[in-house]
């Protein structure tokens, strides 16, 4: 046998081995995942969720997974969900859309058509949730989501949503609350607004402007930018030159972290900083460290709000999860409660019946009172928290014994 033949045979064997390894890897993973779903399929129903577990919204998505799984685990521990006299275990299938809208849409479709999900839970922000809601509407599958400001979500379908529902706060409440909190600290009342051009950011910008003006503040800079932007030096220089001491904004976490770091490096030290959506997850502190001290964070849940089930939530999760993670995860826990209770009330897995039951929701949940409006949104409260030494405390509406720390220490 010649040297060339031996070399060729070695190449073929090596390439074949690599192919076999790749195929075996895919096969093993597929078998493992399908095995898990087969085990769960005995007398069970499937609920699907495509979440941004990685990418720019990774922090929010991870907290969503915690919230959704917690409610499903609670129900399964209690024997399952009661539908028409029988109990069914819930198989929660969660896929990672990596913060990509097209993947979120494709996964929502696959969860229904391939995995047989009878209902869907949504991902964070309108960019991810609206395409999923469209798919749910197209396939006639109930879809409950959260982490989407109400008007941005409610207006995303010109003809009105039929199968999609959202439990979150209203943008107007958000703007007014943020403006009021910003004035708790003494400042020169000059405001710089930083908003990305996602649906919620675009909605929020004029509302912020109106709210701060109503509170006697003056907007000295309005800066808008596409979502992936992470370079803000020209905006920061302009805001600094205009003498802004209050920074209010709405953007992706990656953009928010970059903005605060660049403010520090360019010597811009506003007294108040609150960047909605950006500061909403643990990644905010991980990304900024002590730089985040004193920054604001929007909350839909806090222990001080005394919603139903708060002592139980703190007892079950309080030791494992920080308050900021809970603040982000509990709304998702609440959204899952709304969906599962509606399925139980419907007494059927029929999409039309479950959808009708969701529409009739009217009661107290982990995020407070939930009752859906005509635009398929249920309004929750808006609270402001403040990051202090890696923890979040509710500071607005004021809580006895807790004071807003002014000025923002992280940038000093």
């Amino acid at each position: 046998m010649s040297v060339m033949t031996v070399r060729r045979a070695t190449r073929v064997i090596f390439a074949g081995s690599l192919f076999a390894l790749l195929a075996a890897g895919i096969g093993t993973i597929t078998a493992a995942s399908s095995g898990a779903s087969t085990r769960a399929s005995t007398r069970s129903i499937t609920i699907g969720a495509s979440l941004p577990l990685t990418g720019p919204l990774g922090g929010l998505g991870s907290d969503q997974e915690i919230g959704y799984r917690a409610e499903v685990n609670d129900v399964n521990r209690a024997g399952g969900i009661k539908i028409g006299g029988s109990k069914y275990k819930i198989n929660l299938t969660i896929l990672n859309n990596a913060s990509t809208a097209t993947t979120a849409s494709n996964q929502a479709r696959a969860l229904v058509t391939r995995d047989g999900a009878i209902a869907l839970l949504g991902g964070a922000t309108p960019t991810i949730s609206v395409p999923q809601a469209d798919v749910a509407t197209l396939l006639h599958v109930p879809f409950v989501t959260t982490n989407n400001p109400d008007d941005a979500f409610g207006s995303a379908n010109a003809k009105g949503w039929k199968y999609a529902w959202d439990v979150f706060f209203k943008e107007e409440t958000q703007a007014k609350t943020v403006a009021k909190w910003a004035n708790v600290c003494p400042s020169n009342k000059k405001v710089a607004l930083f908003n990305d051009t996602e649906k919620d950011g675009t909605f929020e910008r004029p509302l912020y402007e109106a709210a701060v003006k109503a509170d006697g503040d003056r907007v000295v800079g309005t800066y808008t930018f596409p979502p992936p932007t992470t370079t803000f030096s020209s905006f920061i220089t302009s805001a600094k030159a205009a003498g802004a001491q209050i920074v209010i904004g709405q953007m992706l976490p990656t953009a928010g972290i970059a903005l605060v770091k660049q403010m520090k490096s360019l010597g811009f030290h506003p007294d108040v900083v609150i960047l909605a959506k950006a500061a909403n997850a643990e990644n905010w502190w991980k990304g900024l460290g002590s730089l985040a001290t004193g920054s604001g964070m929007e909350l839909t849940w806090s222990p001080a709000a005394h919603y139903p089930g708060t002592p139980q939530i703190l007892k079950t999760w309080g030791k494992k999860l920080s308050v900021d993670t809970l603040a982000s995860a509990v709304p998702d826990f609440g959204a899952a409660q709304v969906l599962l209770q509606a399925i139980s009330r419907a007494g059927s897995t029929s999409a039309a019946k479950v959808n009708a039951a969701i529409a009739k929701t009217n009661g107290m949940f982990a995020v407070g009172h939930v009752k859906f409006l005509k635009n398929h949104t249920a309004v929750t409260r808006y609270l402001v928290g403040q990051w202090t030494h890696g923890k979040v405390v509710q500071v607005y509406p004021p809580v006895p014994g807790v004071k807003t720390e002014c000025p923002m220490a992280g940038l000093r």
Partner: protein
Amino acid sequence: MATTALSRAPESVAPALPLRRRGIAALGALVLAGAACLALGEVGGAGVLSLGTTLFAYVALAQAWNILGGFSGQMSLGVGAFVGTSAYTMALTMTRLGWSWLPGMVAGMAVAGSLSALLAFPLLRLKGDYFAVGTLAATLALDAWFDNWSFVNKSMGVSVPIQAVPGQTEMYVIGLVVALFAVGSAIVMRWSTFGVRLLAIREDDLAARLLGVNVSGYRLVVMVVSGMLIGLAGGVFALSLVSFVPDGMFAMSWTIEALVMVVIGGMGTVIGPIVGAVAVYYGITTELANFPTLSLFFEGGLLLVIVRFVPGGLWPFVVRTARRSLEWCGTAIRSARATRPPSS
């Protein structure tokens, strides 16, 4: 134009049968394959219909890229430009003008083709890597423009009217027709004198020009055809996704998907992109949907193995191996007959 080893599929250069007969045979096989897919859609459930629709759109996308990159040797990184333009045209004509999906899709295809023709004038003056970078720059520019253009709702994106989106079975048929059209176009191009001239341009454009081939004209036509086919695929994606934003529709990921599918399946062949689309979308993306990071890992791993060990792609490798096996069997039989003692 200098070509890489990747862009050559040796067995695709010299067909054994006359061009027209091979083309007709291939079109016949395509019709049979289409009928089989249609039958599969009839018996398959919602999962098969949904999977099939996306797979067909990817087949069309990969084939469109292959016509440009594999047949004419122009490596484009601008697939997203045509997917995005077509999807936006479709959504805007449906929402603002009240058109149904069919004229919307045709309009999307026409606008993608026009964009292609428009871009061809500056881009066709560039060669090799510069052409690739030019197509990428055009896509990034379009993405930035749409992100900031009020008429298309800026980065908030647009939606196709839900009530105008066809049902799952209809979507499957639409996807199938688009894929068949793209593969049919590739067959007609490949097994015609047009295709032979295209291959000549791919192998050596200077020699082709000296032989009287209108190199610029052929490249323009192939770029427009590729753009239109990508536009058609973009229309199917738009109907499947319903609502979308510029960053999703003008994304680099469309180019990467098409390129990976074509390279894995076999660049410059007609069957290769189909094999690649099935291997990548069905074999990896769908099977590993729960593990997106692993999915990318396996996709990259497979690409590395193909590029290193089977640079022509899977399909040419299968054809070559089958041909050699048959030759080996024939030789073995002949030698066995030759050594057999003569019977009494």
